[in-house]
């Protein structure tokens, strides 16, 4: 039981670490690049406007898809690694 418990705790810690990393990227592309940091990126031109605009209308959405698939792939590996899969 004690081993099961510490195994489950380690799995959950690994999950939290992964979620934190993913949420940092999630916030960076949307609230960061697209909104708050847009003035800093204004020097990088892209198709008649700047990089921040691209992130606001296209880049953030594409990154979101990437984050979810990365998380799903990584978690399925963690499930197996900790023997907690279905």
């Amino acid at each position: 039981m004690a081993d099961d418990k510490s195994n489950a705790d380690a799995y959950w810690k690994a999950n939290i670490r992964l979620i934190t990393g993913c949420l940092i990227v999630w916030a960076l592309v949307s609230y960061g690049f697209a909104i708050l940091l847009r003035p800093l990126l204004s020097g990088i031109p892209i198709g008649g406007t700047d990089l921040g605009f691209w992130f606001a209308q296209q880049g953030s959405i594409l990154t979101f898809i990437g984050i979810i698939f990365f998380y799903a792939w990584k978690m399925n590996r963690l499930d197996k690694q900790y023997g907690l899969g279905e």
Partner: protein
Amino acid sequence: MSQFAINLLFVGASFALYIGIAIWSRAGSTKDFYIAGGGVHPVTNGMATAADWMSAASFISMAGLLASGGYANSTFLMGWTGGYVILAMLLAPYLRKFGKFTVPDFIGDRFYSNSARLVAVVCLVVASVTYVIGQMTGAGVAFSRFLEVPNTLGIWIAAAIVFLYAVFGGMKGITYTQVAQYIVLIIAYTIPAVFISLQLTNNPIPMFGMFSTHTESGVPLLQKLDDVVNALGFQDYTADVDNKLNMTLFTLSLMVGTAGLPHVIIRFFTVPRVADARWSAGWALVFIALLYVTAPAVGSMARLNLMTTIYPEMSGQVENYEEAASDPIRYEERPDWIRTWEDTGLIEFEDKNDDGRIQLYNDGNEDFADTEEERGWEGSELDVNNDILVLANPEIANLPGWVIGLIAAGGIAAALSTAAGLLLAISSAISHDLIRNMINPNITEKGEMLAARISMAGSILVATYLGLNPPGFAAQTVALAFGIAGASLFPALMMGIFSKRVNNKGAVAGMLAGLLATLLYIFTYLGWFFVPETNMLPNTPEHWMLGISPLSFGAVGAVINFTVAFLVSNATEEPPQEIQDLVESVRSPKGAGAATAH
């Protein structure tokens, strides 16, 4: 064949398809009714979730908002997609592991309290009904335009169709019907966009076309658009916004609202395994993104098309924008699509300076007043409703009649699919959570099904009635639904999974605090229950607290919810051991069976 006959054919054929699927897959047991037997493939489920998610607001309204607001309205794009990241990582897999049917089920069990269950039912019903009202209104507008019937009749037709397949089909009917609806709506949205992108930029993919060179003028499309709108006193399409706090909070509100809306969460109960719930969220976002990356292209290109229709000299290579902008078209020479939409009253023209020409510009810009006087303009003369943009797009680009019929079918599919998904969430909350779990635990399966169908019919009637006399602007109503869901349900769900310390008292206090604070803030500016003239402060940025608009307040409500829940929980006892074990078990995918009733 007349345009009316073509519209009728497309809308009729798509309906026959949806109803056929609903009859073919009629639900047999309670479990089938709610969650399609727990056996839906992640890709199928993702597609159905996308149809569920993309309502009249996404399909009909969003590109119009982008066209008029430009960069500032990117909030809708990021907010309505970014919520899926939260959903995939913070809620969906754990709720699937928990393995019950509904959102109040989880909240009631996790917080071991029927008060928590009841509060969750109330939040769910208020958020969902508010959302359905907007859909009914949207479907009504689309029906009345394309079937050429009065708006009221359009809404009743929509209600009858939703009633048929939601009530008789249940979730399984809805799942496969919604796959069909997704396909109809995505084709309807992309085809005109591809043609318009080809016309303007020679690039067949709208999301790339938007950032390419405008063929006629040789400058990048967005720069061209900035130049054009600037010459008419509007702010640049790509201009940055000053109030970044509000923009951030609005985006966050839409994101947590996405993750807290019950009709989306309920979707993740229908996949066979926990791993599938994770994949499913990813697939849902892929299918949603197909429309969402096209929408900004539709918005920017439609704005440019509209402007160059009115000011033809601005369309090519322009030496002097001042000069080109002073020469709009004559009202008599306006294109046919303007005439068609004038009939609906959604485009209005008033020749304020009696020169027989159409002036469309920003008459609220003080810096532009001198130019205005110089040109003898006496106010902007063309009033174009944002919501017609997507529907009018094929006409603006001179596309054949069948494309117009297709877009009619797509717009109606978007509104109906979301309404049906919401109705299912409402009916299961009432029949399952309220009646079975709280009022009459001995109810038979048959009785529960009957209660579900009656509550669906009841909600349709309420939503249709309110849709006939909408409490406000559709966008405001939808934003309220997001605010409520994000401020009440999302924090409770998340704390239920990520904290073992939050107890029944904390959760109830948190949900109530988040819900009431949000409602109070919104009603202060928009009127009590949206009744006009009952607002206590004018809804203008100067009066907003810290510049936070009522639409953005859901994010603040969520923070209040979290804070209150933690403070109250820490001041009271720990949750019992079995609840802590429940949280442990929800966190690990091991041993997840199919979703069960009890």
